């Protein structure tokens, strides 16, 4: 029994980090927005890591799942706002819609793209976000390129005060919760058959296949899990927090790149990595925006190249090797 719990020790530093971030945000004045942004990046990294980190496949269209999740919440609120008595249940409906839509899209994309490997997979996914955006705009689905603005519906459904509390405080709290859930799922996968299968497939897909591992099944599991978390992040961070959704914004490839940098920086395929990556990236971005506004990308682009060349294992990847076998080693994964 004790051994079973010991398996989950690596969660301690992750949850501790989230708790500290939450407490700093809650109790130090003016820090909430920064902590909320950091939580968003940690959650994004954690969610993306389940697929990119565990399989080694690069999904350039990842932001599409966040976008679809945003639409799910937006539709939930706009369609159900007029029903009396649903109250906060509307948010639950929104989350369910976000989850279902992200899962459906990931099934559709996965069914095609996951048959492909390596470079072909990356090429197939690089257009997913653009493709979906142009479908929404072109066929005028969900208001097309005008997007959806649902501030009024939020006020109507929850009352002005509650709506404002939702977007300034509870949305960020929910991001923390989603991030923690993603960490929980990550460690569960790592410690189960799924994790071993994915490690085998990341190292050598052909060998894994020959050993009788159903690689397609595990790839799809990782892909859908990762996508549904993205949907949830979109639903809170991009829908409840800012009550509008415009196709060009929520399908911007830029966010996929940020997710990739975070996962790589922290250490892909590790549990703590995305948290560390998210913190470093978020703080660096915040700091650069203050001292050198408009130059973040100019600095991040060479940074990506340097990370790939100099330390592809990331911060936690390097640390893990150092602390292996020591008492600290049990907490770092």
């Amino acid at each position, binding site marked *: 029994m004790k051994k079973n719990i010991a398996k989950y020790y690596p969660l301690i530093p992750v949850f501790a980090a989230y708790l500290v971030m939450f407490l700093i945000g809650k109790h130090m004045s003016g820090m909430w927005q920064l902590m909320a942004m950091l939580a968003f990046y940690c959650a994004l990294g954690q969610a993306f890591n389940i697929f*990119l980190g565990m399989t*080694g496949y*690069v999904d*350039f269209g990842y932001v599409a799942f966040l976008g679809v999740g945003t639409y799910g919440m937006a539709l939930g609120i706009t369609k159900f706002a007029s029903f009396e008595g649903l109250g906060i249940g509307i948010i639950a409906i929104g989350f369910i819609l976000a989850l279902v839509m992200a899962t459906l899209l990931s099934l559709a994309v996965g069914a*095609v*793209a996951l*048959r*492909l490997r*390596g*470079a*072909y997979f*990356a*090429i*197939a996914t*690089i*257009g*997913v976000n*653009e*493709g979906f955006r*142009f*479908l929404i*705009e*072109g*066929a*005028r689905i969900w208001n*097309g*390129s005008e997007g959806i603005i649902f501030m009024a519906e939020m006020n109507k459904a929850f009352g002005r005060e509650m709506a404002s509390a939702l977007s300034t405080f509870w949305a960020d709290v929910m991001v923390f919760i989603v991030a923690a859930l993603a960490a929980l799922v990550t460690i569960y996968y790592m410690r189960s058959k799924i994790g071993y299968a994915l490690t085998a497939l990341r190292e050598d897909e052909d060998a894994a296949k020959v050993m009788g591992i159903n690689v397609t099944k595990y790839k799809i599991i990782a892909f859908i899990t990762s996508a549904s978390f993205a949907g949830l992040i979109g639903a809170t961070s991009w829908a409840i927090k800012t009550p509008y959704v415009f196709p060009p914004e929520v399908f911007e*490839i830029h966010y996929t*790149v940020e997710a*990739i940098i975070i996962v*790589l920086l922290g250490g*892909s395929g590790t549990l703590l990595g995305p948290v560390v990556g998210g913190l470093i990236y978020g703080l660096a971005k915040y700091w650069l925006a203050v001292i050198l506004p408009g*130059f973040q*990308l*100019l600095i*991040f*682009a*060479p940074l*990506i*190249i340097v990370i*790939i*060349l100099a330390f*592809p294992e990331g911060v936690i990847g390097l640390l893990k090797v150092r602390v292996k076998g020591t008492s600290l080693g049990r907490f770092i994964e």
Partner: protein
Amino acid sequence: MIFEQLAGNLIQGLVLGAIYGMATMGLSLIFGVLKVVNVGHGAFIMVGAFITLWLFNGLGINPILATPFAFMVGMGLGFIFYYTSMQRLLKAPELATLLATFAMGMLLEEIVKLVAGSEFRGYNWAVGKINIGITVLPMTKIYACIGSVLVAVLLYIWFKKTRAGTAMRSVVEDDEGARVCGVNVGWIYALSFAIGIGLVVASGVLLTMFIPVGINPYMGGAYTLKAFVIAVLGGLASPYGAFFGGLVFGLIENGSYTLFALLPGVEPFALTRFLSFVILLLILLIRPTGLLRAK
């Protein structure tokens, strides 16, 4: 009436397709030789566009003459990127090269933005237009079309007749075998990457003749997706496949635009972009080796 319009648009599509094809040849060459997908493709096109702009507005050099210059600049960039990073990543997992090329593209975009700002710019090269009955073609487009066909032919001759071209083809076939036969594979990798990037930058010059006022540091993104569709149409590893893929894509794009415009309540331009994504997935699903390649 509609057929006349369709025929006119298809001719326009064919002319544009020749440029698309040339723009994708570099991508296919790099994938064929190095097995690297250049995800930063669009940014290199953008560099070509800015070279044209600066040469034309600054020194009055016309875009046709800018093409060889852009090719040289592109080769230079290719060598720099190859020796500073690509070389060390060839044996690394795909993730590494995909991200590295993506980051290169981002770096170029940000540098150009720093120098030139992010507003849209353009130039005006007035050389008249000709009317061929069903549609009107500006002379610039015709020059661009001739230019890209010429480049494709030159590349073909270079591949077939020169030693380096033969060596390159041998590396595409089997790099181990080429090494055994005394080909300096490392140099061929570097040269292919440089020529590939050179072709992409040069195609950026010709492309500006279609969008004379659409030059902007982030203009490349749209062409990256198109280039992937075209490259996949042509079999991804073959520069000639890519050229014909470009022609096919130009026809599909303009043809479908004309047809989508007939539907009520839709935005035809966005649907055309969506269609290109659907085509990409369909080809990858049904025939990953490309439509134009007999297997």
